[in-house]
């Protein structure tokens, strides 16, 4: 048998050792040495430490995911106080600070960090409120007829979203602008839907949210923004 290929030695390390190769390794110092080198590297990579999580971690994860699981309770239980914050206040804050940021004007008393913090707070709140609305839609059992409240919230969120997206675009933040663009299209679909979703329309919106991984992207971006905000 010819000398073993590196790929065969890697397979051998993971327990897939061809009988002919096993025989060859027992008689070939060169291949055995090559195998030992691979083994040494791969054994050392096993020492990659992972931060520990204690026994209560499972309970903590459960607590965090519980609000996002499909609920048997009334949809109103989803509402949090900040989902009821008038959108106009948020929009005014975004517009004011986004304007200052994009026009590079310097307002006495507002440091760049302060403006940054307000934008991050606005983005986080917006994404969290959007996440709740989308989660409700995805998890809805489809038996309701009246979606008036959701449509109004979607319209408010779409207005906020437009400002945030324009700010992100102005600042050449393609990733956030793209996410906000995807989100805006779904929000507008919801806002412009007839007062009662047909099961087919609901299925279409759900499919878009799920196929595009929109909820997950919103959750990641929101968590990211929240962390940055806390660092400021």
């Amino acid at each position, binding site marked *: 048998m010819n000398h073993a290929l*590196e*790929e065969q030695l*890697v397979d051998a390390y*993971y327990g897939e050792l061809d009988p002919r190769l096993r025989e060859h390794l027992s008689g070939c110092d060169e291949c055995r040495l090559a195998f030992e*080198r*691979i083994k*040494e*590297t*791969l054994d*050392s*990579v*096993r*020492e*990659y*430490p*992972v*931060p520990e*999580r204690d026994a209560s*971690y*499972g*309970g*903590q*994860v*459960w607590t*965090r*995911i519980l609000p*996002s*699981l*499909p609920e048997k309770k009334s949809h109103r239980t989803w509402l949090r106080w900040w989902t009821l914050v008038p959108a106009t206040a948020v929009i005014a804050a975004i517009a004011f600070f986004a304007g200052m*940021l994009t026009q*590079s004007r*310097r307002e006495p008393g507002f440091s*760049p*960090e302060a403006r*940054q913090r307000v*934008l*991050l707070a606005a*983005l986080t709140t917006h994404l969290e409120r959007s996440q709740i609305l989308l989660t409700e839609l995805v998890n809805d059992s489809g038996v309701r007829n009246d979606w008036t409240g959701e449509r109004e919230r979607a319209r408010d969120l779409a207005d906020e979203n437009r400002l945030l997206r324009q*700010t*992100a675009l102005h*600042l*050449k*933040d*393609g*990733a*956030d602008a793209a996410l906000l663009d995807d989100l805006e299209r779904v929000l507008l679909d919801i806002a412009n839907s007839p007062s009662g979703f047909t099961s087919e329309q609901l299925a279409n919106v759900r499919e878009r949210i799920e196929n595009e*991984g929109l909820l*997950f*992207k919103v*959750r*990641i*971006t929101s*968590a*990211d*923004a929240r*962390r*940055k905000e806390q*660092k*400021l």
Partner: protein
Amino acid sequence: MESSDSAVAGQARQGDQNAFRVLVERHSRSVFRLAFRMTGREEDAEDVVQETFLRAYKQIHRFDGRAAFSTWLYRICANCALDSIRARKSRKEQQPAVVDENGTATHWLEHLAAPNPSPERLTQSGQIAQLIEPALQKLTETERIAFVLRHYEGCDIQEIARTLGVETNAAKHSVFRAVQKLRRALQPVYDARSWGMAR
């Protein structure tokens, strides 16, 4: 006596939320370890853990018990980790270089993020992680997921191929390329050690 995962998953499939809670409590730590190895970042791993269980909850009716529940869950976790890495990568690639009035490059979300690991992180991870994590970062997302599944989870190539949605040969090649890159990245350490021993 503790019920098997399969029995508990059966109850969860019937809509028993408490049964699903049992599964979350049993598997969160192992899913976190897997997610951390795949993403290399604690906060991303936390997001992936949550998303994994959310997707598992929604798809529990698809769990048919042919594979172990943990295997099924790890497959979901790997897909979430892939999404997370791609999202992170896309955000990084599109980082704008906005310059503020002081001439400092900034970003409306990231401008104060520390580029280097914190002292605590370095202490926690130790010297080995300092070498291994940068080496793992040189892998593509597919190579990294394939390698983690193979190396740490002991998955066979067919299982990795199914998880990644690629052909068996492609999965095998991803693992092999990952090993090659890791060897290249870690080689200077071994060379230095051999040199030290030879003196």
